[in-house]
């Protein structure tokens, strides 16, 4: 690890001003991505500003049909939260299959979506549920937030404060785990909004990161059932291919995971 200066912020405003002072600052949340990258010397921020102890970034709120998860809430706290389990059980399930216990105790929803790894789980949930990302400056629709591999709509120094999810009629998530990293080799989140709108998002599959799957959305809109997806054909074009999965395999997984997510949806 290169030499760095660590700061523990106590408010979002303080974090933003500390960030501005450093020559090459980075926010730190759970550290499950940033710290390994720093240890490998692939990143060398001058200043690290820890968001983990900021009270206003912690916790879950359910109000009416909106579930809000604050940015620095850990996966473990999300997974075990009664409101999450009741309002959107698919999110509780998603966190239960994310990483391992050590990662779940530390990693945060804000860190996950700010990082926007193409194989991360949470981006699929945000996109399929039509969530809104709240920052210290604005609100950003999930459709606009994720902009390709490790790229988001966040500006330099902008802090995610929370994510708000409209509570759906039904939602489900299924993931084929990457055999080595346990990220999503392909994961599919399906959601049927209370308005009847159907949104489906796949992660781990596309060369451009998390994506909506229009063909499956159309099929499910006509008939919300696993068998409705039988006849959908998913092209392997533009899908990721690596030693653990060819593009054709990932195309198959999009279908199979979507079917299983529908079957599991509650």
């Amino acid at each position, binding site marked *: *690890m*290169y030499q760095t200066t660590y700061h523990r912020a106590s408010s979002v405003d303080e974090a933003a001003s500390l960030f501005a002072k450093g020559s090459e600052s980075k926010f730190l949340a759970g550290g499950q991505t940033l710290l390994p990258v720093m240890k*490998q*010397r692939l990143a060398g921020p001058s200043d690290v500003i820890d968001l983990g102890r900021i009270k206003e970034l912690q916790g879950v709120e359910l109000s009416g049909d909106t579930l809000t998860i604050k940015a620095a809430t850990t996966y473990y706290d999300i997974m075990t939260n009664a409101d999450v389990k009741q309002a959107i059980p698919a999110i509780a399930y998603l966190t239960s299959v994310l990483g391992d216990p050590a990662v779940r105790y530390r990693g945060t929803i804000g860190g996950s979506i700010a990082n926007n790894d193409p194989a991360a789980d949470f981006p699929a949930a945000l996109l399929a549920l039509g969530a809104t990302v709240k920052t210290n400056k604005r609100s950003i629709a999930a459709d606009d937030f994720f902009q390709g591999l490790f790229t988001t709509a966040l500006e330099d120094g902008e802090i995610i404060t929370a994510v708000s999810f409209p509570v759906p009629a039904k939602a489900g998530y299924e993931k*084929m785990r990457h*055999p*080595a*990293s346990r990220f999503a*080799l392909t994961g599919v989140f399906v959601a049927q909004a209370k308005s009847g709108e159907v949104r489906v998002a796949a992660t781990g599959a596309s060369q451009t990161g998390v994506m909506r799957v229009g063909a499956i959305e159309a099929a499910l809109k006509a008939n919300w059932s696993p068998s409705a997806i039988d006849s959908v054909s998913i092209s392997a074009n533009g899908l990721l291919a690596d*030693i*653990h*999965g*060819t593009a*054709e*395999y990932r195309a*198959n*997984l999009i279908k*199979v995971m979507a*079917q*299983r997510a529908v079957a599991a949806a509650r």
Partner: protein
Amino acid sequence: MGVEGIGARVVRKEDKRFITGKGRYVDDIKLTGMTHAYFIRSPHAHAKVKKIDSSAALKMPGVVAVLTGQQLVDDKVGNLICGWAITSKDGSPMKMGAWPAMAPETVRFVGQAIAVVIAESKNLARDAAEAVVVDYEELPAVADMHAAIKPGAPQLHPEAPGNQVYDWVIGDEGAVNAAFSKAANVVKLDVTNNRLAPNAMEPRAAIADYDTAEEHFTLYTTSQNPHVARLVLSAFYNIAPEHKLRVIAPDVGGGFGSKIFIYPEEMVALWASKKVGRPVKWTGDRTEAFLTDAHGRDHITHAEMAFDANNKIIGLKVKTYANFGAYMSLFSSSVPTYLYATLLSGQYNIPAIHAEVIGVYTNTTPVDAYRGAGRPEASYLIERLMETAARQLNVDPAQLRRTNFITQFPHQTPVIMAYDTGDFNASLDAAMKAIDYAGFPARKAKAKADGKLRGIGVSCYIEACGIAPSKAVGSLGAGVGLWESAEVRVNPVGTIEILTGSHSHGQGHETTFCQLVAERLGVPISQVSIVHGDTDKVQFGMGTYGSRSAAVGLTAILKAMEKMESKAKKIAAHALEASEADIVIENGEFKVTGTDKAIALPMVALAAYTAHNLPDGMEPGLKESAFYDPTNFTFPAGAYICELEVDPGTGKTSFVNFVAADDFGRLINPMIVEGQVHGGLVQGIGQALLEHAIYDANGQPVTASFMDYAMPRADDVPSFNLSHTTTLCPGNPLGIKGCGEAGAIGASAAVINAITDAIGKNNLEMPATPDRVWRTIHAA
């Protein structure tokens, strides 16, 4: 058996220190004035090192020195050696390319060291390493074995034209051809044995400490065989004479073979410590482990098996290409030859076998022994062939094996090994019963109704362990003898120290070796301690690998114990005024049989050391040593059966049951044996389903971290169902065969046989990843 004697499930003594964080590993050791080494490694698979400019680095804070390969040459430090000479079929010796500990001129794999920075801290050394400017001229590289042997392929070593290490043969080719010419059926199979990265939990590490006044070196290192390390370092590398070099291998966190070898980093640390006049520490990180710990396996094989009309095997021919990587590691030459082809008879009567093995250099990490070392490759091949044959001949795979089992012992195979004993039907019976083999068709039908493809796979392995009779291995080219030594010291107060040349790096010797003492003397194991891993304390030793520590190391202890007991009995008889022949040892006492006269062990020990009243002419003291050289290999064998389900939608495999019926001869501590089997099975399953060290066409490693290299985790494997059938090994007095490698040798074939049974297609390579299985299911 006593409560802590042979056969008792005694809790491991060493675990208290391990699970309370009190283990003392090399990296835990800190010496006064210690400096830290960081190696500069080639990012290219093949390149000329044109220039190394360390001027900027030398000005960085805390930098003590930057040392290069050329300085090793200038100081006449020897190149790395390979300790087993193999002769090609044309009579020529193996072609060994020079491997300097840091490359002065040419690098041949990604991660090969070219220079080292010595600094006040590891981080400072690493900072400075980034400031060393290396000018490389890239050369074409080749990572694939088939590409490497093609005409026009990039050449690695001038010594080895065509990138060929050797072309070695074993067996009677004429007899095999004759058998094939009268065969009723011939079964053919091509298999790849995937390359593995060993990944011990503790990475390799070394601390070298040169004492300028005494001109003496101490090396703390992660070694499975500290005496062998000292021998090789002093005999071949010209760094330190043997009597001026102490090698200490303290607690070592797993080896699996990868810590047998003497690596460049230890050599450089020793040499650098003298150069800078201060202790030098190097601790590898996980990336360095992936790049530089010797890899395992990596064979491509074509095999054909000939059957007569009664489904009896009449001949076997095998042609194997074995990847050596860029250099010949310490025992690399023996692994695909004498540790592989000599086991090709499996558990079967095969009258004629011929095998040809071609060793190939590629621009990849060197390959050497990894848990099982050659025997997993042999067992996998034979057991895949048997399954393939059963399918082709349309007979039950268990029955085909029984038709061909060796049932008379001793049995001389056509490939050197003479099996001493075994009962292969008994193991197979036990495994079939444990898994309810007969009930499988009904379970398969039920699974099918649930949309799952269920399969069952058998693997009947045999291995040669207890490595090894020195004379025999010497005649086959080994550069060392493979006996073991032991010393038993009974202290004046009656506690006992056992000094052993075996080295424990997870095997539990500190418990099992004490159990032998408890068994013989009836003393609690708390009164016994095991001393190992230090060349200044232990007389000598060949170390731990090849499932040898119980069969060879413990037998050496037994021999020393017998000598000690014989002397102690004389002392007791003298004190009790009885005849030596009437003395028996029970519960820590020497008793006159049939009387109530007895003297406790501490009193015998005290008598030995006070020497006030010893029999005439007897030397004082109670300490004996022994060297034990085995007379044959031992032959652990067993039957593994795996039942699993494949999800046709994803190709994912889920275990239903995995049974292992092993014959290890006598068990010292069944709990520790089970632990060894569990670990081995997990490694075998890891090879079958998950693990694969991959290079791209240019020799760049694709799997140099756990993000890409899939190690098995607890939830990847089933809860194992173990049992034992026992035939005692006639080759050693304790009847022990060894258990350390069996799981890794037998498991992978059972898994692949089960998956191919489930999906109804025979051709499937390891690792059977979900993607690969899914594509195989849906292939035309």
